[in-house]
């Protein structure tokens, strides 16, 4: 980890991830305060920092965090200003101190610099600052201690609103221990921005002792929870009625693999929210509170105004599609309204930057506004719908939800056969459930009374491996007389969740826009409007140029897709076409074709040739030796199937040998790999089908998954001989 990440890690630990902070630096005062903080932190009587003996079990580590302590302090006071107006001042301090044994140059580099904001002014109307102090000392192997001179800090940036600084840790060598801290002191008036913190009891490096101590004043609300077998925090109060929380763990090994891993569901962790406004501390935030907050947000959306802005256009589109749309079945009205609404919100817009390229596909509209207004719109057209929420698959589980941000929002359209609508992106169509929430417990969003229990017995549907399918059909032949250059005509169908990423990469905004405009019978295009409006008519030419450039970029986007799929750059991309963008629930698959040449897969052996057929159909995941053993559960994005058929045109005068090794089946509870090959006429037909049956597997199933991965790797090495004569 480099210096910047190191400091970011520390700041992440204490949650100082806001646009913030302070005013003009008074260096004298800063130094005085810095000295006081130094004296205080070095004076901590924590025995963890007295222990200088590295446990034998960690002796082979690059570095060992001997002690890590986080301290969160929050207080507030009311005072009058010069105009006799009453204000509440909030003070929030966070300190992280860490003592690290450095065992090699990689760790030395990681800990050799500290970057931090000495001062920052809080943004906007808020009156407040954050000030950060750092300190460091080196403990040499002989036990001598050398304080790092923080006056050697250099200023990287010094503006009216912030000062960014950097300190090189002097005299740090392999074999030393570095004892350092970062203290951030925040002051704000009348409003305390919420702190939402998560402390993982796990790191890239082992931790001998990790403790957290919080002292939170009575004018704050504290919410907390322990996750994934982390110990429970001890809660108490002091004489000032501050809430005291203490939690710690010892002998924490370095975090396990990051491969197919969810830290937030696997690593022991402690979550802490510190919010302005005093109330009793809350251990394990009740879901009713979260639902009530969601309801509050939804109720207070000004969806009526939002709807009025598009009402006439909605009606026009509905009528243009079907003059008697009100007589249509409810399901059809709902779907038509959803498509019309999506078109108006996502497609029928020109932003200032005239962005119509790949970035346009990632246009983002707040879920609450998008779905809130959609619900109002559906209601206008006589369709009932209900808000539904579920936790994110790779976020905190339902037992450890701490706020609205932990929960997704979807709309269930309550027609005869109800279906969900999400706001994943501009391509989301009715009845599409994003991979991030599928299979999760869910419930309707409504308000609850105290003591109520949120029923989360229902679950979002979970897609199957068959539903998430990548179908590849490759027609391969030699490229003219060149026996070692393959010419590939590829047809790809991406079903279910597999289309999410490729829609963002491959779809051309203009094509999607025109496709939807045509489907919705919208006569006038954006270009017509631009030409017509006096203010914007001169931009229409620019817009046309932007569309042209976006279309020109498609070749590179498809080339990138081919390279990532085959882990090899094509020699040339000859053609590409999106046959179906997958924008509609009636035809939800993303379908495209590509034509390209690729070399390096055909080897010459005298008069014969060897075709590396395995690499034509399959690019297996590569595991490092240490990844072959695993004791944490496996988190994949979703169950899925790759179904690949290759037809290779056997060149005249050659026969194919070696197909026997291509007929194999590996099958177990986690998935399967089934391969076959045969010659039909002058075609070598190879079929490869790989399936991961589930999105998650317990750690105990890792050997079965390894068998699938190994079968893929084995097949990737398979070759056939093209024998002359």
């Amino acid at each position: 980890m480099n210096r910047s990440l190191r400091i970011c890690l520390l700041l992440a630990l204490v949650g100082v991830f806001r646009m913030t902070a302070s005013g003009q630096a008074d260096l004298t005062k800063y130094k005085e305060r810095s000295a006081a903080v130094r004296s205080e932190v070095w004076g901590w009587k924590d025995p963890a920092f007295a222990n200088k003996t590295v446990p034998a079990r960690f002796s082979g580590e690059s570095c060992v965090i001997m002690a890590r302590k986080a301290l969160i302090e929050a207080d507030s006071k009311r005072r009058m200003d010069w105009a006799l107006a009453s204000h509440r001042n909030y003070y929030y301090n966070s300190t992280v101190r860490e003592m690290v044994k450095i065992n090699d140059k990689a760790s030395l580099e990681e800990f050799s610099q500290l970057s931090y904001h000495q001062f920052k002014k809080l943004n906007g109307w808020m009156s407040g600052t954050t000030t950060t102090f750092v300190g460091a000392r080196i403990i040499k192997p002989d036990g001598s201690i050398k304080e790092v001179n923080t006056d050697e800090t250099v200023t990287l940036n010094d503006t009216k609103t912030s000062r960014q600084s950097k300190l090189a840790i002097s005299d740090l060598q392999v074999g030393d221990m570095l004892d350092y801290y970062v203290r951030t002191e925040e002051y704000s008036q009348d409003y305390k921005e919420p702190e939402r913190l998560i402390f993982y009891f796990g790191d890239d490096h082992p931790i001998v002792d990790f403790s957290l101590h919080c002292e939170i004043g009575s004018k704050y609300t504290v919410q907390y929870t322990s996750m994934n077998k982390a110990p429970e925090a001890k809660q108490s109060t002091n004489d000032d009625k501050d809430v005291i929380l203490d939690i710690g763990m010892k002998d924490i090994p370095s975090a396990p693999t990051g491969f197919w891993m969810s830290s937030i569901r696997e690593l022991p962790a402690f979550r802490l929210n510190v919010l302005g406004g005093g109330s009793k501390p809350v251990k394990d935030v009740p879901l009713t509170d979260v639902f009530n907050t969601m309801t509050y947000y939804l109720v207070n959306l000004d969806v009526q105004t939002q709807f009025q802005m598009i009402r006439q256009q909605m009606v026009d589109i509905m009528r243009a599609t079907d003059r008697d749309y009100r007589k249509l079945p409810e399901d059809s009205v709902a779907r038509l309204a959803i498509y019309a609404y999506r078109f108006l919100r996502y497609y029928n817009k020109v932003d200032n930057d005239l962005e119509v390229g790949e970035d346009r596909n990632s246009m983002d509209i707040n879920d609450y506004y998008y779905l809130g207004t959609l619900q109002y719109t559906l209601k206008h057209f006589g369709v009932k719908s209900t808000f539904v929420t579920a936790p994110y698959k790779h976020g905190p589980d339902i037992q450890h939800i701490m706020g609205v941000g932990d929960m997704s929002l979807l709309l269930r359209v309550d027609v005869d056969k109800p279906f969900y609508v999400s706001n994943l992106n501009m391509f989301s169509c009715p009845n599409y459930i994003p991979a991030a929430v599928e299979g999760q417990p869910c419930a309707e969003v409504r308000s609850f009374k105290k003591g109520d229990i949120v029923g989360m017995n229902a679950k979002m549907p979970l897609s199957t491996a068959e539903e998430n399918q990548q179908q590849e059909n490759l027609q391969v032949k030699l490229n003219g007389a060149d026996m070692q250059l393959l010419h590939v005509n590829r047809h790809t169908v991406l079903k279910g969740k597999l289309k999410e990423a490729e829609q963002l990469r491959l779809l051309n905004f203009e094509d999607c826009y025109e496709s939807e405009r045509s489907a919705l019978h919208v006569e006038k295009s954006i270009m017509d409007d631009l030409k017509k409006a006096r203010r914007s008519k001169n931009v229409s030419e620019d817009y046309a140029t932007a569309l042209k450039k976006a279309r020109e970029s498609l070749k590179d986007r498809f080339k990138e897709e081919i390279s990532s799929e085959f882990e090899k750059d094509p020699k040339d991309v000859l053609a590409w076409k999106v046959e179906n963008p997958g924008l509609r629930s009636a035809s939800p698959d993303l379908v495209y074709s590509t034509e390209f040449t690729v070399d390096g897969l055909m080897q010459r052996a005298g008069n014969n040739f060897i075709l590396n057929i395995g690499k034509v159909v399959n690019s297996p995941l590569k595991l490092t030796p240490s990844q072959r053993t695993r004791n944490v559960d496996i988190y994949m994005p979703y169950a899925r199937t790759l179904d690949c058929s290759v037809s290779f045109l056997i060149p005249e005068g050659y026969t194919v040998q070696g197909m026997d090794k291509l007929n194999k089946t590996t099958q177990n509870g986690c998935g399967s790999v089934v391969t076959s090959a045969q010659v039909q006429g002058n075609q070598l037909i190879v079929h490869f089908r790989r399936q991961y049956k589930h999105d998650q597997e317990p750690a105990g199933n890792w050997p079965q998954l390894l068998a699938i991965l190994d079968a893929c790797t084995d097949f990737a090495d398979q070759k056939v001989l093209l024998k002359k004569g």
Partner: protein
Amino acid sequence: MRRTLPALSLALTLSFAVSKAPLASPAPSGEDSNIVISSKTDRYSFEEGEKDHPVIVRQESKTQYYCSELRSSIAWVETYDNQSRIDGVKVYVNGSRDKSIQPKDEYYSSGDIFYSDARVYYFSLPFVKKGTSDEVDLEKTTLDPRYFTTVYFTEEQPIRQKTVEIVVPKWMHVDIKEMNFAGNRIIKAHQSDDKKGVDIYTYTISNLAAFIKERNSPGPTYIYPHLLILSKYAELKTGRQQYFNELKDQYAWYRSLVLQVNNDAAVMKAKAAEITKGITGDLDKVKAVYQWVQENIRYIAFENGMAGFRPEKAQDVLSKKYGDCKGMANLTKNLLTALGFDARLCWIGTDHIAYDYSTPSMAVDNHMICALNYKGKIYFLDATESYIGFGQYAQRIQGRQVLIENGDSYLLQRVPVTGCEQNEVHSKYDLQLNGSTLSGQVSHVWKGENKEDLLFQANAIHKNKLQESILEFLSRGNSNYVISGVKQDGLENRNTDLSFQYKLVYNNAATVFDNDVYLDPDFRKEFGEADIDTASRHKDYLFDCKGDWITETNIMVPAGYKVQELPTGLDVQRKGYSFSISYKMEGSTLKYRKTIFIKDVHLPRSGFAQWNTDIAQLKKSYLQQITLTHK
């Protein structure tokens, strides 16, 4: 030493447009031509200043940009430092002064520089629609003409027309060197205005492509047309103000800065004795000191005003355990001096810079190293090269002119140029075939800069992951490789070669079809993907270093088999590189030998087509298999 920032150097040339009418001519082909500089004028005037800055250089620039395709914006950037200041910037958007654009003024930051006093003054310049023009007017002052070193014609955008005017009063003695003018239509005019007492040099250039950033390219001083400004001296009313009239003036200035550094001889003596304790040979002591500095002093780049030219005290670098090139050179020198060696500081421009000391200027050098004069031979020690051995030299300093301190005078020498053998990589495989498995002994040796690169990577890996990483590296991630009994040498020692020996079992190495076995004898295939995309590559290519890659694979053919046909070998011999592949049978041993020599790191664009043809041949060779059949 103060390192040159190419992008910043170019940014120093921002200029000014005289024509208010947008031009419609196309930008130079093959570039993003949306925003072009339709016209720019840059005027630099040497003027008398005040006591602390007797001569200053005023810059007035007007740049007119034209939006030719669609609404957009560009980042407008100007840099300055404590030897210069920005006096004013005016922005005109679509013909009207726009005071709402608030420039930001921040320290320049770059990934490889810990701290720099250079500042960037920047803002986003919007173009409201196609066909509109914006203008930016800049006034800037350089407070010391020694810091006014280059004027580039090239800009971040394509240029249709640009004029550079240098106004030199008769009392100011300046040489203006025209660099890289060949191939560019630059019209020069000289006007002597006796009434005003000035000489005016005017350069006009049309249709110039934009600055392009590409990896492994020669530095901008080699490529882009520019003026090298050599301020020699000024004859002022107050007397003669000396700048860099000759190299001795530049050396004298450098030396004056070095003499200000109070190194603590006692501290150096104690540390040098500690480092060399128990070592008797002179050169062994030198190696020990050199390696100690490489191992224990972290390189951190500082560029801070005068401190950007003055080394930090040796005892401070020793105490902090970090320093920049000047600090590391000064520490190396003082440790060696403390042991009684004749060690000197050296100024040097790396191969990023086209100039040498025949043109005295602060643009000539960007680095500092140490020289050891031992028994009549000079060795150069660059401790910023953390893992290179004693007597070996990095490509970036090879052949470069070195200004070596020598009391009040100086020495000029060149760093030796080494052959590609300095950086040899030698792999040897002695294998037997059994079924489809190859097994046997393998050895690899890395030397010079190739070894340095590997040591750098190895030391960046956490040690608990190092063994796995080494196995990954040796097997190239091939899960069919089973490696055991690894012996290594040189991971801890810069002054020996880095070598690995191990036992290899390579499963599925051969493919068996009926009675025939097909073998690929090359497992690393160096340069197999080294073809250059000539459509996107605009500049010459510089390899990181010269080098030899030698592979010998000996495969014992199993009894009962014979080699049906040996593939055709390869022999490509070019001036700058060569590839050679041969196959032969010696008894029952199949011998495969491959040599790749990169003899010249510079591959000009004119050589790309030949290079690609040759790489295609190499690639074809890599795709050849050997067929073994039953006798």
